[in-house]
């Protein structure tokens, strides 16, 4: 790996303020770091998004992470449990006086929709998401996922950043810090919030925390463009060009007089990138170039405004992936509207709430997967479909809905480097607790990084005394699901 890591070269060009680099060398000289020392990406401050080599040959070059906010119930969607039908409305054996997030538990309740075999593989998936179910042969399920927290905020933090506390860099920030991007006219990392709003932890899903701010995700969607992107209406195109030209010359002369600071050059190029981004970002949101067939496939003209909005976001996600953006995050559901109203948090009336949310997700998201497959994008892109935790197989006492359940739930992957039509791990007979091949979010993140050619134990950043990683001090690559 040494050719990637000419430390002196890097030191000379490092983003100023990243004294951690000097520190790492010091640690090493002091013998405090073992042989498996951090692998530092070589970042040219004037081109922070330049593509950078991975630690080893990657299977995936890009990531599309789909996040369903509010905790999607696995027992009503992906995780088929015949026992729940058999034991409908009876107490869950061994549950005693189980207290979960909102209090006491009632009886086991069968899934809100029937399950049917799907695709060639015959994978059992419920009727709640019929279009997505059709894509079963392209999915690789992890049915034994577990989360560390039973509360939305911390659990979203964990899925997004690896830690239940606030203040850690998001997975996308880590990936783009390591790898840069294939597209120099865009931020390397784009987050696409649901038209209804943002999830519970909001921008922390795409924050850079203590990583350099260059690697924070840029949030925009089909309705809401990048902040401050457009030239203000009061300024004419000519005035804009004249001003920019003047600024460039002025900064150029300032640089000549002050050749001792490389940051000055970096800042000049940042204005040039900004100008290119203005063009690229307008182009990418112009969905009029999509064929009517494609638009119909996603459902962009649906009379359900939330669904049509989400469908447009799905097309935007595909276009960003097509243009080489390294990490795209697509959100389904928003938090601020409250419990279960705009998201998957079905505590009280899960039948009614899921009848609203499922159709918003289903057709557009299935179309996205189908379209990406048809265009060959799944060859290089890893799709990761997640939620913060699962839900109980029981209903809450005195309510018609399911409480939080971090002890076992389902996520699925698709595309580059993962098996198709495959299921890894399992929960118990009721879907309450992961029993077989118990998997953690650390493992999921480790696997994601592995597919991108990154060693999750060596991708680290020194912060306040610790070499921080996306996977903390945990994580094992789930080798079973890899092709």
């Amino acid at each position: 790996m040494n050719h990637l890591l000419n430390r002196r070269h890097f030191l000379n060009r490092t983003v100023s303020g990243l004294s951690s680099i000097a520190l790492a060398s010091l640690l090493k000289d002091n013998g405090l770091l073992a042989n498996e020392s951090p692998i530092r990406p070589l970042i040219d401050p004037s081109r922070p998004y330049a593509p950078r080599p991975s630690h080893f040959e990657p299977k995936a070059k890009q990531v599309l992470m789909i996040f369903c906010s509010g905790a999607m119930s696995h027992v009503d969607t992906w995780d088929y449990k015949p026992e729940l039908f058999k034991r409908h409305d009876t107490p869950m054996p061994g549950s005693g006086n189980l207290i979960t997030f909102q209090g006491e538990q009632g009886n086991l309740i069968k899934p809100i929709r029937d399950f049917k075999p799907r695709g060639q593989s015959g994978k059992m998936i419920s009727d709640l998401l019929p279009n997505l179910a059709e894509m079963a042969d392209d999915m690789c399920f992890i049915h034994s996922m577990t989360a560390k927290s039973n509360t939305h905020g911390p659990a979203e933090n964990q899925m997004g950043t690896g830690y239940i506390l606030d203040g850690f860099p998001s997975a996308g920030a880590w990936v783009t810090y390591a790898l840069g991007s294939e597209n120099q006219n865009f931020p390397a990392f784009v987050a696409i919030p649901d038209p209804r709003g943002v999830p519970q932890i909001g921008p922390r899903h795409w924050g850079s925390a203590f990583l350099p701010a260059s690697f924070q995700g840029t949030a925009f969607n089909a309705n809401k463009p990048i902040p401050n992107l457009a030239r203000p209406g009061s300024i004419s195109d000519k005035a804009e060009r004249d001003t920019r030209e003047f600024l460039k010359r002025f900064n150029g002369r300032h640089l000549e007089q002050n050749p001792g600071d490389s940051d000055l050059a970096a800042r000049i190029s940042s204005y040039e990138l900004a100008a290119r981004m203005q063009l690229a970002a307008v182009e990418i949101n112009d969905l009029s170039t999509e064929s009517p067939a494609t638009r119909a496939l996603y459902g962009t003209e649906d009379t359900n405004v939330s669904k049509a909005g989400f469908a447009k976001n799905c097309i935007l996600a595909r276009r960003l992936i097509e243009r080489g953006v390294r990490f795209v995050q697509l959100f389904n559901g928003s938090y601020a509207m409250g419990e279960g109203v705009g998201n998957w948090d079905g505590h009280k009336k899960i039948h009614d709430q899921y009848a609203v949310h499922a159709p918003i997700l289903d057709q557009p998201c299935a179309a996205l997967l189908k379209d990406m497959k048809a265009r060959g994008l799944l060859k290089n892109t890893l799709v990761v479909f997640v939620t913060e935790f699962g839900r109980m197989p029981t209903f809450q006492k005195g309510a018609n809905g399911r409480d939080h359940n971090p002890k076992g739930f389902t996520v699925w992957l698709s595309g580059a480097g993962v098996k198709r039509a495959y299921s890894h791990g399992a929960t118990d007979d009721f879907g309450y607790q992961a029993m077989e091949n118990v998997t953690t979010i650390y493992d999921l993140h480790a696997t994601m990084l592995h597919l991108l050619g990154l060693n999750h134990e060596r991708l680290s950043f020194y912060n306040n005394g610790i070499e921080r990683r996306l996977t903390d001090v945990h994580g094992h690559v789930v080798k079973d699901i890899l092709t």
Partner: protein
Amino acid sequence: MRSVLFVFFIPSVILAVDFDNEIRPLLQKHCIECHGEKKQKGELRLDAKSYALKGGHEGPALVAGDLAKSPLFQRIISTEDDKRMPPKGERLSAEQVAAVKAWIESGALWPENVADQAAAVDKRLQHWSVQPVKADFGKTASIDGFIKASLSAKGLSMFPEADRRTLIRRLSFDLTGLPPSPERVEQFVRDNEPQAYEKLVDELLKSPHYGERWARHWLDIAHYADTHGFERDQLRPNAWRYRDYVIESLNADKPYHEFLHEQIAGDVIRPDDQQAVIATGFLAAGPWDFVGQVETKSDMLKRAARAGDLDDMVTQVITSTMGITINCARCHDHKLDPITQQEYYSLWSVFAGVKRGEREVSAVESKRLADEKDRLGKRLTQTRAQIAKLAGQGLEIATLIPEDSGIDLRNGSVTKDKLGFHRDLMTNRLQKVENVSGVKWVFVADGKGTVRVDAKQEVKGVPATSGHFWDTIANRPLNAQRSTKLGDIDFAAKGHTMLAMHANSGITFDLVKLRELSGHAAMRLNGLVGFGASKEVAATRADFTVFVDAELKFQKLKLCKDETSVLDIKVPATAKTLTLIATDGGDGISNDLLYIGDPKLVPEVAESRLTEVAVIELKRLRAEVQLIEGDLKALPEPAKVYAVVSEAKPPVIRVQRRGNPEDEGAEVTPTAFAWVKHASAALGDRATPEGQRRRALAEWITHPDNPLTRRVLVNRLWHHHFGQGLVTTPSDFGLGGDKPSHPELLDWLADEFLKSGWSLKHMHKLIVMSAAYQQPSMSINSEAARLDAQNRLLWRQNPRRLDAESLHDAVLVVSGTLNPAMGGAGYRDFNYTEAYAPIYDYITPDKPELWRRSIYRFIVRTTPHQFMATLDCPDPANLTPARVNTTTALQALTLSNNDFMLQQAQHLVTRIENETDSREAAIRRAFALSFQRDATAAELQAATPLVTEQGLFALCRMLINANEFVYLD
């Protein structure tokens, strides 16, 4: 035991195993890499006898004579891939395995040699930062002496001092966070006095802007914000007092050890000193998880949230003051520093009784205010009683309606039921009330046209409404009414009456009938109109209107929670109807819980019926009521601050194995860590009261012999003056942190700090007066760059980009809009929407409240401020000893197009136009204001066509985007 085995079991043939020749080399070759000084997988070391016998996770590595209990042997013969040692490469040969077997069976004789003994010594105890601070430097020692010495050791030297303009800009930004005025620059450049620079330093250190600037650095370390953070990021409306405390303390040059004392234990040391109480806002400054600590029903989640809380507090205190990454010992002993997990939890027990919360700044003051309120309240009641006595009792109109009942708006009947939301009734249609004497009609008003209040009477002036309604018009609190109190009177209590009217209800009284009932002719309607919603719905509004016949006599629009309005309306002897109407304030009917307290028709006292004395007395009493009411209104709420809420009896703290709150181990007592030996680490025992624990810790931290506290602080100052510290990891002085580039200089500064009485301003002056500080930053010395690319030796100053706050504030100064108001609640540049998780939408109104310095920004923890965050303003979830500095396209877009920048560019235009009278003068002024220098002839020539064609705005917008504006030489 071993020796016993030795005696009994060792046949001479096995004695032949020679540890030093056969076993030690095996350990060396196959084990030490992972189980030695550098790495201790499974917490096991095999590089010294003592370590091997102490063992790791699986207990001792070997037990003499017992192969089954010797993991060392079991691991080398294991056939399981994940157990076998060594894990990679060739297995040990059969001969080697046999040798180990024989060695253990024979008693595992391990003669200790020098290497064993050396390995067993804990070198970490000799780490530089925990050694006493050197103090014997002699009188001639100086910053420049140390810097020059290390430069000349490499054959390098310093640059001569930078030009005056560079120096004054650097000093101004460093010490006050603001640019100097062009006039002050000019004056300084021309000042030939040898003391000119020093005078400037003194002037800037005296400026109140100094505290505003340096408070920002301290608040970064304290991860201060004005909301809780986490899932429900609620407001902390009184956190700002702590921010002001920091500013004021710095401006007063409060000795640093006192500053720390107060922040850790001010409420204990001086409970009656408001500032000392406010200071503990430091311990509460970080995030707090409402859902985890309060809302969840799961005790397990509560324990986890509290654990996170204590970790945050302990980490903040120890890293900020002593630069030790204590939090690394939460799940296991510290991997690098000699700090045990037990020591970490012992620090928890110092804070075990500390909770973050809103508290009164001064119990004495709060009591005084409460007493005063009580006294005024009593006087008011008495005075009103006297008025009633003189003027006659009057008729209670609420009690016309039977007790605990209401009139149903749908049919005029009396009901005891509480009704809910209705939207299905015809509006403005009178419903006859048969069973309430004195009441003629009820109706739902919509105000879109005229409103009928009597059979042949229509009125104008009722606000337009939704036409929906809620509940009856009642002689009791309304359905879902939260409050029945106005001032200090509870109108639901005995001795009072209330008429409750939710929007959009109307009621018409029959005055003819009421005159019969009361026997009065001319009357006045008296009462207090109030709003019975809870605090949470403070945003809703409602209106109240009164008509006598068709004449509008009273109207209060958009009444809100906690607002009251006094009714005192003339009802002439000839009037026929009295109509009261509650409407929805235009924002829907929810929570419009209006009511009138003690509504009465009192007789309009005919002067002739009262004695002259009584008339005068009545007038006096009415005036007195007004006075008392004024006094009550003027009484301030007791001052509050978000700070430490202390529990007298702190809970017992136990070690949490693997950092898991559900897996507790041994009890710990308040103790500091033993690595630093300046004073006893014991801070108390199980019985020590909460506050005394913190006080003891504060004293331990600020002990003059504590080797870390002073070093860490002077290094922080150095970091901010030079862009990097002598130690480049300002909050990590442990083995994982950096070593000082100039250890002696660091100690000399720490010593000087003590001698100055912990004076920060003394240290600032010392540093900025040095020649090292006054060097240019952009000069090139290629030999120095080759030898010392990071400029650790300080062969020049370091150029720096302005941080988010300085850039924001500099723009305000240049455009002339800076609002210099100091202190008080932060400015809120967002729209706030109350919700389960409040929503913060940032806005950029162009007005003076928002032109204050950014230190006064109301900081929302979880919703980053786009402008500030893009410029690397840190996330207040994190303790930030050193900011990262990035250059991105989003910054370029933000500075070019963000509303704030555009508004300020326009203000700069206006300012320049006011101050100049020609194009050339305008361009010159623009350069002077922005860069505090004259425009060159070339610049003037280049700028003229831009201004001619695109206007002065284009130039101004460009200047505040320029590198020269954004970077500090």
